[in-house]
């Protein structure tokens, strides 16, 4: 029992580090600012672990896991954007990188090229659903923060508007 828990903890640490590198490395390729590099990696790694926590036994995530992960990445990006004075996209793009379905898009085309149309349909739908989920997860958080900010701004402007 003890060793099982220890192993599971090690599993999490290993995947946390892998996701950390997996968010930092693509971020360097798209020229992120040096001061934000580690923060972006942290967001990606935490988001990955949030998704992993719902089902630690499989590395291929289902839609619900991806949704939870991206909502976390969205929240983290918006908070860090205010805290570190940078646009939220800078944290979002590296953060969602471990989830993006680039590989299933590739597998779709590969199956099409090999005349395996059933496989292509499976991979294609997988790609579509995953990218919709990621976009939706990020979108919900962005919309929420926008709404809150607009409300705050309206509150501040009220006295000057009413004169």
């Amino acid at each position, binding site marked *: 029992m003890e060793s099982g828990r220890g192993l599971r903890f090690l599993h999490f640490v290993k995947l946390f580090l892998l996701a950390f590198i997996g968010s930092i490395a693509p971020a*360097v390729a798209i020229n992120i600012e040096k001061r934000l590099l580690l923060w972006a990696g942290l967001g990606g790694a935490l988001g990955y672990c949030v998704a992993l926590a719902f089902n630690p036994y499989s590395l291929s995530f289902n839609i619900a896991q991806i949704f939870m992960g991206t909502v976390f990445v969205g929240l983290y990006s918006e908070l860090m954007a205010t805290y570190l004075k940078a646009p939220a996209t800078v944290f979002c793009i590296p953060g969602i990188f471990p989830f993006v379905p680039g590989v299933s898009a590739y597998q779709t085309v590969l199956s099409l*090229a090999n005349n395996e149309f059933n496989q292509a349909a499976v991979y294609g739908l997988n790609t579509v659903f995953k990218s919709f989920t990621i976009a939706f997860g990020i979108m919900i958080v962005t919309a929420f923060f926008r709404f809150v900010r607009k409300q705050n701004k309206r509150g501040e402007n009220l006295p000057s508007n009413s004169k």
Partner: protein
Amino acid sequence: MEQEQILEIALQIGSTLLQYGAETYRVEETIKRICDSYDLNCEPFAFTTGVFASAKVEKGISTVFKRISSRKVDLTKIARLNALSRRIQREKPDYKEIKEELDDILKCKTYSYGAFALSFAFTASVYAYLFGGSYTDAFAALIVGILLGLIHPVFAGNSSLFPFIQYFADGFAAGILSSVASILIPLTDVYIVIIGALTNLLPGVALTNGVRDLLHGDNISGVTRLGEAFIVVAVLAFGAGIGLSLWNLGGV
């Protein structure tokens, strides 16, 4: 500042944002915010390959358009342009100062050639492992990633090549390198290695951004981005497939 100059600055900032991978709604919002802060009533329209902005000036209606030929994500430039647009709103600096700042942003330094290659290597290796590869697969992907990262800027930096040829060259290089690596390093799965190597190049983020544009109501840019992403995937797979089969022909 004159009204035409305001429009020019706003459009230049907007088009640079678009060129370096900002979302469509952010581009439109930035142009509108800059014009608003100078009390210029402006109507921007951005899509994936260009930006329009039209404003009512003293002499009538003025419309400017900027075509964007190449796109590439650059987070430093997005962050700095964002900061600049906020500064314009706050302080309203004069034309020359903004121009100088813009030039400075365009020239901002990027990571070195070696760091770029290493980033490709680590991405390839991590995702080869996460995709179910063994440690040897990850090691092979690391080597392939470094070489791919050294080759990639040669084609991507050359604006005289069509995007199609750039992606094809990338895919082809990934295919050849992966098959060589899987033969030289024992116990590697060429399929996993090639997927790891291609993770660097596959437009997963563009795909997600396309859906994001669609959800946001920017249908034109959404569909364009999705179409672009599909073409890129197809060309990469095409290049990789030809690379693999060429090596098999020669090797067998």
